[in-house]
């Protein structure tokens, strides 16, 4: 074991891991994050906490993670390179580890153009791959990026993001290889609706043995409505939503669409369980955390292993 | 007080618009004396500075007349002219001058009537818009020109 992370233990045991996500509030309201996290207790091995998601200011991921850790749950600290330079990032990682946070995700982040502060400079002192390298060096060599020794180096279980649906497709397996080489222990993928394309990517991943170098958690998101399906299809970069999914959502009366979305999500998980190389699932039910327990149960992923 | 007589400068290309003006003349079609014609080899020769200087020197309205689309004797001088006219219209708006005081027209050499119509229409439009520069300002300009 590289770390004390529960997620690492579950993955090492060979059982399918489950993670989910909480978005911090747009204000100093700790109750909101605690409520969301409480809904997930017992149903997940780790809870991602997003970092100024969609470039909109929210309570810091680190602060929200600390609240969640104090509840006895296992937060996954998401950090984007958009808002902080390497000093600030290393500093936050030390602070997180000191609070008992041992799992994190290294990301680039959405461009400020999309958010509420488009005037802000985007930092990108380092990119997500250099970030993975930096955290691995902190953990395995006990050294800061600048070279000096760290007292009590943070033993972080390190994750990255993978998007099999972004362009150019021919690079997406090579990109995973780069992340694995840089130090990713696990990746969470963009939410999957196009199973054929995902399986195509997984074939490429398996051909190179990457599924053995890095654990792949397949991302899923339940749709709340046909409108949401259309929005994700047309307006969100890097998202692949096939027409059949939109049609299926639209083919059901409005009051039943939410349940249909959950059904599709559960079916997706069942199908993904059959794909070799998938080590678990990352359920992103944004502002819909209350349905996650149901999804976990109906997918046969409950109870979570006792380790 | 004298009624306002607009001063219009018309940049006319030699091959089409200027010839159309001639045609109007030989057909005995009248057009207002307000329109002062400047003959250019091609409407594409007209640059932004020429248009601005015309206004600066006291023109109340300016137009550029070139060949019909696709017929320019120099291939695409008229399209270039049109782009420049659009550019200067924006510039005029930025300095507080009504962009309608500047226009681009297209005509063939034989279109005497069109030439005459355009000249009259433009004159009337500008008459309604009034003088571009105040009479006080124009006389200052005349004095500068003399000096």
């Amino acid at each position, binding site marked *: 074991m590289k770390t004390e992370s529960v997620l690492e233990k579950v993955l090492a045991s060979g059982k399918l891991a489950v993670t989910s996500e909480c978005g911090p509030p747009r204000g100093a309201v700790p109750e909101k994050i605690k409520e969301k996290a409480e809904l997930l207790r017992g149903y997940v091995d780790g809870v991602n906490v997003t970092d100024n998601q969609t470039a909109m200011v929210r309570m810091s991921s680190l602060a929200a993670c600390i609240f969640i850790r104090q509840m006895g749950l296992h937060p996954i600290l998401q950090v984007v*390179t*958009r808002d902080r330079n*390497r000093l600030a990032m290393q500093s936050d990682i030390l602070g997180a580890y000191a609070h008992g946070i041992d799992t994190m995700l290294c990301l*680039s*982040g*959405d*461009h400020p*153009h*999309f958010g509420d502060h488009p005037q802000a400079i*985007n930092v*990108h*002192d*380092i*990119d*997500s*791959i*250099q970030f993975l*390298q*930096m955290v691995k060096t902190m953990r395995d060599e006990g050294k800061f*990026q600048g070279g000096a020794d760290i007292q009590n180096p943070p033993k972080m279980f390190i994750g990255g*993001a*993978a*998007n099999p649906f*972004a*362009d*150019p497709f021919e*690079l997406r397996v*090579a*990109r995973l*290889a*780069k992340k694995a*080489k*840089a130090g990713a222990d696990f990746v969470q993928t*963009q939410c999957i609706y196009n199973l054929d394309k995902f399986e195509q990517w997984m074939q490429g991943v398996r051909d190179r043995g990457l599924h053995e170098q890095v654990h792949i958690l397949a991302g899923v998101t339940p749709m709340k409505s046909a409108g949401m399906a259309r929005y994700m299809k047309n307006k969100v*970069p*890097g998202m692949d939503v096939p027409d059949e999914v939109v049609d299926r959502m639209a083919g059901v009366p409005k009051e039943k669409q939410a349940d249909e979305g959950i059904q599709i999500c559960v079916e997706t998980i069942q199908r993904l369980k059959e794909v070799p190389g998938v080590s678990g699932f990352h359920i992103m039910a944004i502002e819909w955390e209350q349905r996650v327990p149901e999804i976990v149960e109906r997918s046969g992923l409950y109870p979570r292993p006792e380790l | 007080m004298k009624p306002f007589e607009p001063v219009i400068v018309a940049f006319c290309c030699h091959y089409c618009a200027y010839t159309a003006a001639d045609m109007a003349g030989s057909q005995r079609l009248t057009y207002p004396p307000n329109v002062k014609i400047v003959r250019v080899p091609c409407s594409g020769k007209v*640059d*932004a*500075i020429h248009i*601005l*200087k015309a*206004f*600066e020197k006291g023109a109340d309205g300016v137009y550029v007349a070139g060949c019909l689309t696709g017929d320019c004797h120099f291939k695409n001088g008229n399209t270039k002219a049109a782009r420049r006219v659009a550019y200067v219209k924006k*510039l005029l708006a*930025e*300095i*507080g*001058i009504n962009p309608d005081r500047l226009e681009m027209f297209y005509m063939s050499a034989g279109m005497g009537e069109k030439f005459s119509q355009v000249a009259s229409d433009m004159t009337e439009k500008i008459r309604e818009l009034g003088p*571009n*520069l*105040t009479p*006080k*300002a124009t006389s*200052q*300009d005349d004095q*500068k020109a003399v000096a």
Partner: protein
Amino acid sequence: MITAERKPMEEIVASIQPFQRILLVGCNECVTVCAAGGRKEVGLLASALQLKFLKRGQTMDIKEITLERQCDPEYVEEVATMIDQVDAILSMACGCGVQEMARRYKNLPVLPAVNTKFMGASERQGVWAERCQGCGDCLLGLTGGVCPIARCSKRLLNGPCGGSTNGKCEISPDVDCVWQLIWDRLKSLGMEDRYEDIMPAKDWQTGRGGGPRKIIREDMAE
């Protein structure tokens, strides 16, 4: 070249409002190439300003001159004889030129008439695009001659990110995804295996991160 665009007329007019006599100075190099501040643009701006003031019933004394460059003291010196005839200098050069004029003519306000934009190249007539950010440590040899620092919206050295769509950047369909361009170049050069080399974290000290920069040629500087 260094590209620039004329400031909005309102802003220029407001800045010269307090003065009676202006020296409008253009530059024959970069701003001429991008049609922002060369001889033609000087003439145009002078005429437009005159028209603006005439409409208010005022006149402005505007002298026009275009120097070879404004970023070299020898050329800046050329207007020394005109200085006591004006109250302010309005420069159409890039920020470098405006500052050199201000440095030489300490007793006159020197005002910028253009917004300096970026170091770029002409894609075609009338279109200029950003190419270089002066990072001070050029890595173009590794990326097939295409710069991710200047042309990636997130400055990724190991791109693309997950937002690349159909060869375009997530922020706009008008912006190319430079990592798509780099990948295409690497392919056409037979250098695909370069892609998986990890580019390490950049030392920004050679760029603006290290403070304002200077180059000194000891064989040339006295």
